[in-house]
């Protein structure tokens, strides 16, 4: 009997060990002791999109909601390394578990929230639980978080810090910490009130220097996907000085925007031309090979290529714009990187549909500016 029991225990342990090692890269450091729950959490962590994935997750969360061996901390810990969709499922599970037992786990939750190695979204969730109806605690915690690894917690902390009057030195610290453009702009405005001028365009990493060519034809809004010769020539690194435009020959024109938000106003530069396309080329000199993001704000149809690769494409006209409206990861190579922006205007006549402009910046994944060499 004893042998039999031990064998069973060994088998379970072995199965658990195998299962754990298979999933260790995703699950670590979750310690879920029941195989069923372990499998269910794995399903939630890996979720992407589509019907099969959703149905599998629906079954998994039903299993987890019935399991007695899944703890709140485990569900939060599992968010680390999970897919974005998976994190939302795990957040749903965590919220339910918090209602059942969370209020008796303040110490564990505080420890989790203060552990910067845990998933930022999970820590933000816990921060809210801990500070709802406790303004004093909220203030105390945020006072230490303006350099937090979680962009959301950092954003809250800077918002909180900005509620009081600050001196130059404090504002400079916040400016260094801030990543969201709205906060960067607010801090720069406050510094300006104190007599300190900051180059906002440089602080955010906007590209000010462009070469523009156009207009090319987009009457009927039909040429978003048409590769004009200038586009194909640029892709092979051999552009000419002059091309046939919409109505006449057009040439490259250098343009440097002085706008603090990096906006290049094509409507102003091209006499409010409608039904047209302008190309804008820029060069970015990177000090090293590095990961980065290219971020675009544009109220018109747009495409961006970096070093010949299409990275952004949106056939959308006049439905709002803002800094960082579109963001995509790119790989910068050491030295010169070539950027081409295609901006398409349609022919809408409404007063609110006349803007024709774009703004591009280069930054790291957190939003901190990466500047071209020499700037």
């Amino acid at each position, binding site marked *: 009997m004893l042998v039999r029991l031990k064998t069973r225990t060994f088998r379970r342990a072995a199965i658990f060990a195998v299962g754990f090692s298979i999933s260790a890269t995703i699950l670590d450091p979750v310690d879920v002791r029941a195989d069923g729950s372990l499998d269910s959490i794995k399903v939630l962590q890996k979720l*992407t*999109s*589509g*019907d099969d994935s*959703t*149905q599998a*997750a*629906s079954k998994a*969360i039903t299993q987890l*909601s019935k399991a007695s061996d899944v703890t709140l901390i485990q569900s939060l810990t599992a968010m680390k390394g999970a897919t*974005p*969709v998976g*994190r*939302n*499922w795990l*957040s*749903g*599970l965590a*919220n*339910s578990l918090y*209602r059942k037992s969370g209020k008796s786990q303040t110490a564990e939750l505080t420890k989790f929230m203060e552990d910067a190695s845990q998933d930022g*979204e999970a820590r*933000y*969730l816990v921060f*809210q639980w801990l500070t709802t109806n406790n303004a004093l605690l909220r203030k105390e915690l945020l006072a230490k978080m303006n350099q937090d690894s979680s*962009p*959301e917690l950092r*954003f*809250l902390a800077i918002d909180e810090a900005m509620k009081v009057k600050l001196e130059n030195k404090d504002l400079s610290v916040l400016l260094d910490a801030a990543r*969201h453009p709205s906060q960067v702009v607010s801090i720069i405005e406050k510094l300006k009130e104190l007599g300190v001028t900051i180059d906002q365009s440089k602080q955010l990493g906007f590209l000010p220097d462009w070469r523009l060519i156009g207009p090319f034809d987009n009457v009927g809004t039909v040429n978003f996907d048409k590769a004009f010769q200038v586009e194909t020539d640029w892709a092979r690194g051999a552009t000419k000085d002059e091309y046939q435009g919409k109505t006449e020959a057009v040439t490259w024109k250098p343009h440097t925007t002085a706008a603090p938000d990096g906006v290049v106003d094509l409507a102003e530069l091209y006499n409010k031309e409608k039904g047209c396309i302008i190309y804008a080329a820029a060069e970015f000199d990177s000090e090293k090979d590095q990961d980065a993001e290219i971020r675009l704000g544009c109220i018109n149809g747009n495409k961006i290529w970096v070093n010949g690769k299409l990275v952004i494409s*949106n*056939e*959308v*006209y006049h*439905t*709002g*714009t*803002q800094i960082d*409206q579109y963001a995509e990861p790119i790989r910068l190579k050491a030295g010169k990187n070539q950027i081409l922006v295609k901006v398409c205007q349609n022919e809408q006549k409404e007063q609110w549909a006349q803007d024709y402009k774009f703004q591009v910046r280069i930054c790291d994944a957190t939003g901190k500016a990466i500047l071209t060499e020499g700037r």
Partner: protein
Amino acid sequence: MRLNMHKFYKSSWFAFGLTVATLSQQMTAKADWPMFRGPNAGSVGIDSKLPTKFGGEAKENIAWRTELPGRSVGGVIVVGDQAITTSSSGMDQRRLHLISVNSKDGTIRWQQEFVARGRPFCHPTSANAAPTPASDGKHVFAFYSSNDIACVDLEGNLVWYRSLSTDFPKAGNDVGMSSSPVVLDGVCVVQIECQGDSFAAGLNAEDGKVLWKLDRPKQANWSSPTIVKMLDGQQVIVMQSSEDLLAVEPKSGKILWKKELRCSTIPSSFAAEGKLFVPAGGLTAFDLSSVGTGPSKLWDNNKLSSNACSPLVVGKNVYTISRTVLACGDLFSGESKWQTRLADAKSIWSSPVVAANNLYVFSDDGRCFVVELGDKEGKVVATNELGEAVLGSPAVSGNAMYVRGVSSLWKIAEK
């Protein structure tokens, strides 16, 4: 043997208890105001009596007010004793909240929270939490401008979640989306119309599977799908756009009929008295008794137009709001009867509701105009101030009105 019988009795009682509990739950879970504009999208609180005067400095007839995280321009639904609404908060309004409030005392019963995986951007006056949630009395479906959709049970436990922008990456509109979902025959229907991935879809209420998907015109559209009961008793989903008006079978997505029609893209359609009222060319009425290729047109009247609010019917009249003008027409002939300007009203985005022949409409500065509806005139009998912006449509349940302000939820009832 005795033990087995005991087990049998126990399991029988257990089963009986479970049945009673299930029935009881279904009965108590009856959705009083289950989706945008309430039962049948009628916007009318049947047999409800609401105070005409409320709010102000005296907080007259305010049963409770509960502050909620973030902001919302959507509405509120009532399911049993829960008033349920959504919020969006945090950086770029990426935090998505679904909140149930006890209708009796305003305490928060449960909350769920997610992070937007689609585009969270919108006009500064709007919010990611713009669509009104929906319920089938068993589930609650929370939908957001970012095209994230979550289904929870009535205790707030997650049943399923989908990021429709992960499935369809070009779905979205950076002015903000606002079409509210509806649920019918076990299918949650969403209408996501924009210049990118533009579609309507029916999702299985139980597990979120996309049962059907219809390509839609690639134009921005903020109107909501509507449940319409045809005269043969069949319930269908009606959707409108700047190009068409169509009815689909909820389980299959089969198009039952389709008309080319330039409909408004903000206010939504609804059916009453065997007619379908569509904000198009002002207001256009269709006869639901004529099916086949689609209902035939009865009348239209460009003086009964709606810029944002959805129209409604009370008695023999149809009512519309354009900017700040409330207009009344005969629902049979379409002839205009009267119109009245809501003096000093600012922008009105919140679709009105009616209780006991009084129409309640909020302007976006939080003032509620109470209009006594008559055949000859509409008389403003009270103007009430909440002191908080209101852009979502209220819910009426029992003798109470639930109002979703931008940052809080209010219950208004006679004290």
